[in-house]
């Protein structure tokens, strides 16, 4: 069933508006696109390439991406087809594709980084990744955790999503507080502002944000989930107990029970409605506010991450990774495309309205596209220095993945916030984590 409609899927921003917004950047990049296209090998002509991505949180980015991919395809004679599904549903689809031994050529991990689960069935992309690393001033250290298994690259990191603090300057001013820099500052603000009807909130529930936010707090407090090898569990520590205690305090003083029911979208609405004094979320929340409540947006600022008691700052990002199935019928085109998008990362960042953060060092040259000229988001231009991923400082291994998807960390914080004893909670949580790691070692 062919459909003549130009819009590939749900798109909120009209293509024309979009070009007007991004203007010059696109025009410049198109020239680059044409140059790149000329280099692609001729044997790709007449082939097809199917890719599966998530539905990006900035819908305009998907519109840009689909068009970008199509243009590349047209230039190289490759019939490109891009499908999008919500990030939470990707693992089910991959399980089905793997069982079927057929599906998309080029796939994408986000939310769940399944490189460690599927690497035996993924194409070794070391040549691509190392080439890009050389070209763009080396990969960030933890890009390896997203893409490598046993020293070989089975995934090529595309970008990651930063999850900073978004705070209301007008409200902070109203209680005589300056710009926050530490978790303690944030706690104080919440304590003073909650009675005025402006509490804060971080999800104590089973959602992605809950996993990220509490991990950020943990890592800032000096908690290590495992050692750098990812083999030994180190979460049973003084620091973890401190983090739990702090979370309990900040909940009691500065939040309402609604945080127990929140999903990934709730804190966006909380900020955009003008109620929240600060939230810890990806900048899509910032954009939602910009689009729906300009008055609140005017006073909303961004802090890359708050510092813990010892001055430690770790932001927990959400990596996005390309991979190619071994059963793909068009590995050359898929590899070519990964390089093509990496070579156009600037245009991509611009299109994502500052949402996509690059993994390659050289791309942090200021001013960064989408961020550099933004008076509020400019602070994110050094995010590479403070970004960690789940499992930190260990890699995102399959057991770390299972700890993530079974929500053990958010559940520990939930229990303590609800008044459970810290020692008992530690015993439970660490026990569950141990059980998972033992299972993975055994198999």
């Amino acid at each position: 069933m062919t459909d003549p409609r130009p819009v590939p899927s749900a798109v909120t921003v009209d293509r024309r508006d979009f070009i007007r917004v991004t203007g010059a950047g696109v025009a410049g990049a198109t020239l680059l696109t044409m140059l790149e296209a000329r280099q692609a090998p001729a044997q790709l002509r007449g082939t097809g390439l199917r890719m599966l991505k998530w539905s990006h949180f900035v819908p305009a980015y998907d519109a840009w991406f689909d068009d970008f991919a199509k243009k590349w395809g047209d230039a190289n004679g490759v019939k490109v087809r891009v499908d999008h599904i919500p990030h939470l549903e990707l693992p089910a689809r991959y399980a089905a594709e793997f069982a079927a031994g057929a599906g998309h050529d080029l796939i994408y991990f986000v939310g769940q980084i399944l490189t460690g689960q599927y690497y035996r069935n993924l194409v070794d992309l070391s040549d691509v990744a190392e080439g890009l690393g050389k070209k763009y001033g080396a990969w960030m250290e933890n890009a390896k955790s997203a893409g490598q298994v046993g020293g070989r690259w089975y995934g090529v990191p595309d970008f990651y999503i930063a999850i900073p603090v978004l705070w209301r300057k007008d409200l902070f001013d109203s209680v005589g507080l300056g710009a926050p820099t530490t978790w303690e500052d944030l706690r104080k603000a919440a304590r003073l502002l909650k009675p005025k009807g402006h509490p804060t909130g971080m999800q104590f529930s089973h959602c992605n944000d809950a996993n990220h936010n509490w991990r950020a707090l943990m890592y800032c407090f000096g908690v290590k989930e495992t050692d750098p090898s990812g083999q030994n569990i180190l979460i049973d520590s003084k620091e973890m107990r401190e983090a739990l205690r702090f979370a309990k305090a900040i909940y009691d003083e500065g939040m309402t029970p609604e945080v127990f029911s929140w999903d990934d979208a709730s804190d966006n609405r909380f900020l955009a409605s003008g109620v929240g004094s600060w939230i810890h979320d990806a900048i899509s929340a910032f954009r939602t506010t910009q689009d729906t409540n300009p008055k609140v947006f005017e006073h909303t600022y961004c802090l890359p991450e708050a510092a813990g008691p010892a001055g430690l700052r770790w932001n927990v990002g959400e990596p996005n990774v390309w991979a190619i199935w071994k059963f793909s019928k068009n590995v050359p085109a898929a590899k070519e495309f990964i390089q093509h998008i990496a070579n156009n990362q600037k245009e991509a960042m611009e299109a994502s309205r500052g949402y996509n953060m690059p993994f390659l060092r050289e791309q942090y040259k200021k001013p960064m596209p989408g961020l550099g000229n933004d008076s509020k988001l400019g602070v994110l231009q050094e995010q590479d220095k403070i970004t960690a991923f789940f499992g930190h400082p260990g890699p995102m291994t399959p057991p770390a993945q299972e700890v993530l998807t079974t929500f053990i960390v958010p559940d520990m914080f939930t229990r303590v916030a609800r008044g459970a004893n810290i020692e008992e909670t530690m015993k439970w949580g660490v026990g569950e984590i141990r059980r998972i790691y033992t299972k993975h070692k055994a198999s």
Partner: protein
Amino acid sequence: MRPWWRTPTARRYVFGYTLLAPAILYVGLLVGIPFLFSLYLSMSDASVGDPVASFVGLQNFEAALENQAFYGALRNTLVFTIGAGILKGLLGTTLAFLLVQSFRGRRLVRALVVIPFTLPIAVSVLGWKWMFDSQFSVVNWALSRLGLIGAYGSADWPVWLGQPHLALFSVMFVNVWRGFPFSAIVLLAGMTSVAPEIIEAAKVDGANFLQRFQRIIVPMIAPILFIGTAFDTVFTLSDLSIVYLLTNGGPDGATEILPTLAYNTGIRAGALGRGAAISLFLFPLLLPAMIILLRTLRRRQY
């Protein structure tokens, strides 16, 4: 003497099994064999990306039993299924009694109450998510204006999906909301099928309403109630979508049920073997229960 295969009985058998064959083949090929494969998965250390799995016996089931979250999920599954079953039964029966009356606008009412059942579940659940929103809940707005609960931000503002018991009740309620019209219609069918003559005869015999209900209506609608409940229970037991879309088992496992735990372990974390074991855990319990139920049902009907 005719050969045995020409006897009427043999011909009936051949005819009968030929009629049965398509259904048996279809279900056997598309459920039977994959099911055996799932059984094998549940006894292997398979992960989503590793086809070379080895046999580990009952280890995955043991692993489930060592997992504290599993007990919570098991308990919630039972509470959810039984609680929702009872509520659907009660609401359905009451509604059926009302709908069996003749009154003006009966068709319209009937049309309106079946809508919950006809909406695709994945989408109507999202409607509920919106109504249960912690900040913009229309239910809370109404209750708050009526003075039954406090204002937004106060301790008396219910957070439907955030308080443990309330959250479990909320996911159960969505299941009930969707299911009770169906119970009502099934029961209505049972009631209208009781021939008026029988009821008249009972009236002549001097039976009062309660006796009529007990002796005539109940035995006649019991079989349909059973089969309806059996299908609905099985559907509820394995349905992932309500909990997955509303709470994904949170907060702190308050709404975790076996399907969500199995999905998050087996598919999202990729530990297929353990996921399969969790999802199949109730099978050995359900199987005999269903066999007994179905046999009694069939016997009764002859």
